[in-house]
């Protein structure tokens, strides 16, 4: 017992982590985490401005968020758009990942790069180009416009996670199922799908979150009749000085964190089985 205790102690003496490095690490970690934590106390404030520290304690901002039709409509629009965009991105992204998995050559590599390019395209450049074209195609301010644009930026995440899942997939299984008489679609649904389902679910969740949180393109596609939650939050800082954004932020941050934790939990359980 004493021997095992002594060993690491001696090792750290030879090559210790300097105290100042630990301090810098802690400060940087706080820099990452702290800003969002400021939002939560703000959301219980009784103030009608953005003053900090918040005054009093009330659920007034939450009440306003969940009853004011402007905020509620924005929330509803965002959920609907994100669901549809995630669905579209997941279907076309999964199909593309499977297709590209079975293809080799320069053209396939080029297609993969092309599908990923929206990750590095500055959102504002994309937003402006989409706005100008969608204006002519009468898609600005429409549900279809939001869904198309958000689905396109969600595809890379589906592609990455499904491609990752396909890496561990044995193609012999498909040949086996074909030799047992399963048509391709049935083979996909009963053999491929269950094995790569975790990749598909992960991709779908990231596509959902990407759309739900997207603000730059949404700012350009907005119309008075149809705008998303991030756009309403943007308005509340720039135009309205409406502290309801604190409640909205807290709800969104909590929801997204929960989704990620659930995903991790489900993923962990699947693997243990």
């Amino acid at each position, binding site marked *: 017992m004493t021997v095992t205790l002594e060993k690491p102690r001696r090792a750290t003496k030879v*090559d210790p*982590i300097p105290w100042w490095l630990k301090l810098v*690490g802690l400060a*940087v970690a706080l*820099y*990452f*985490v702290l*800003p*969002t934590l400021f*939002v939560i106390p703000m959301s219980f404030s009784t103030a009608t401005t*953005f003053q*900090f520290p918040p005054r009093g304690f009330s659920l007034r901002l939450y009440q306003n968020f969940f009853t004011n039709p402007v905020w509620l409509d924005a929330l509803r629009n965002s959920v609907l758009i994100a669901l549809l965009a995630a669905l579209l991105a997941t279907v076309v*992204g999964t*199909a*593309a990942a499977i*297709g590209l998995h079975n*293809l080799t050559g320069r053209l396939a590599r080029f*297609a993969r790069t*092309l*599908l*990923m390019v*929206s*990750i*590095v*395209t*500055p*959102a*504002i*450049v*994309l*937003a*402006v*180009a*989409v706005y*100008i*074209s969608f204006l002519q195609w009468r898609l600005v301010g429409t549900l279809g416009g939001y869904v*198309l644009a958000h689905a*396109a930026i969600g*595809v*890379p*995440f589906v592609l*990455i*996670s499904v491609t*990752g899942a396909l890496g561990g997939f044995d193609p012999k299984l498909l040949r086996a199922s074909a030799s047992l008489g399963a048509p391709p679609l049935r083979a996909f649904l009963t053999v491929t799908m269950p094995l790569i389902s*975790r990749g598909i679910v*992960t991709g779908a969740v*990231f596509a959902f979150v990407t759309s739900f*949180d997207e*603000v730059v393109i949404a700012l*350009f596609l907005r119309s008075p009749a149809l705008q998303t939650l991030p756009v309403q*939050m*943007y308005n509340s*800082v720039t135009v309205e000085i409406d502290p309801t*954004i604190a409640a*909205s932020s807290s709800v*969104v941050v909590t929801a*997204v*964190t929960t989704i*990620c934790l659930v995903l991790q939990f489900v*993923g962990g359980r699947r693997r243990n089985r």
Partner: protein
Amino acid sequence: MQAKAKQWLLVLPALALLAAVLLVPLGRSLKLSVAGGSLEHYKSLFTDGVTLTVLARTAATAAVVTLIAVLLGYPYAYLMTRVEPRLRGLLMVIVLVPFWTSVMARNFAWVIILQRGGPVNSFFRLFGWDLVLYQSVAGVAIAMSQVLLPFMVLPLFSALSGIDRRLLLAARGLGSHPVRAFWKVYWPLSRGGVVAGLILVFTLSLGFYVTPALVGAPQQSLVAQLLGQRTTQLLDFEGAGALGMLVLVVTLALVAWANRLGGTISAIGLVAAAPAKGARS
């Protein structure tokens, strides 16, 4: 042959979606920017007296962001290579926190923190210095660095974890001062990761729209705001097209450069995949 065509059929819907949202609109922007076969819209970017100032301010802001990112990211990534695996996992999750916290919540938080009477202002007033970072370039840079740090930390961490620390101990064993040992032995080996991170962070900061719009001052707009303003307020689609193409080309060229320097690992893909990986493992 037929099997191959079938596989391409699976890729087609995704490519069609990409074409409708990305390729065709960008192509049309390009076409608008060179309308009439002239380059006058590109020329006026450099002669209108506004664009160049904004571009210079954007580059300066990006440089400050990059400097903050490397000064904070290097020690953090180094610390990650030193601690035990469990703590390393935690540090990795913390790096990715700004990534999956809502864009608007994050920017709103920075407005609260940096505003007059906010925590930062109150802190400095204790020392008799009425420093307000809200609506300043420094404030914008601080807010931007926070979310761009993963792009510094992840390539750096992958570079630093490949370095054999025993080299450092050997240098010290041979009588070298720790600082000199670091500078002569460790730093040169980490330079590839540093350069990749520098380029990535710099490049990605060029396109920021929401943070300068919310945290920055209106009279100190960056290129993204100028682009938006030209499009929706001035309806100068040709000028916006030219400016957009300039930003896009610079961005893609720098990212390609960073990729090449980063070796086989595409740092962007690395970061983009990291949250997905984190959720899976």
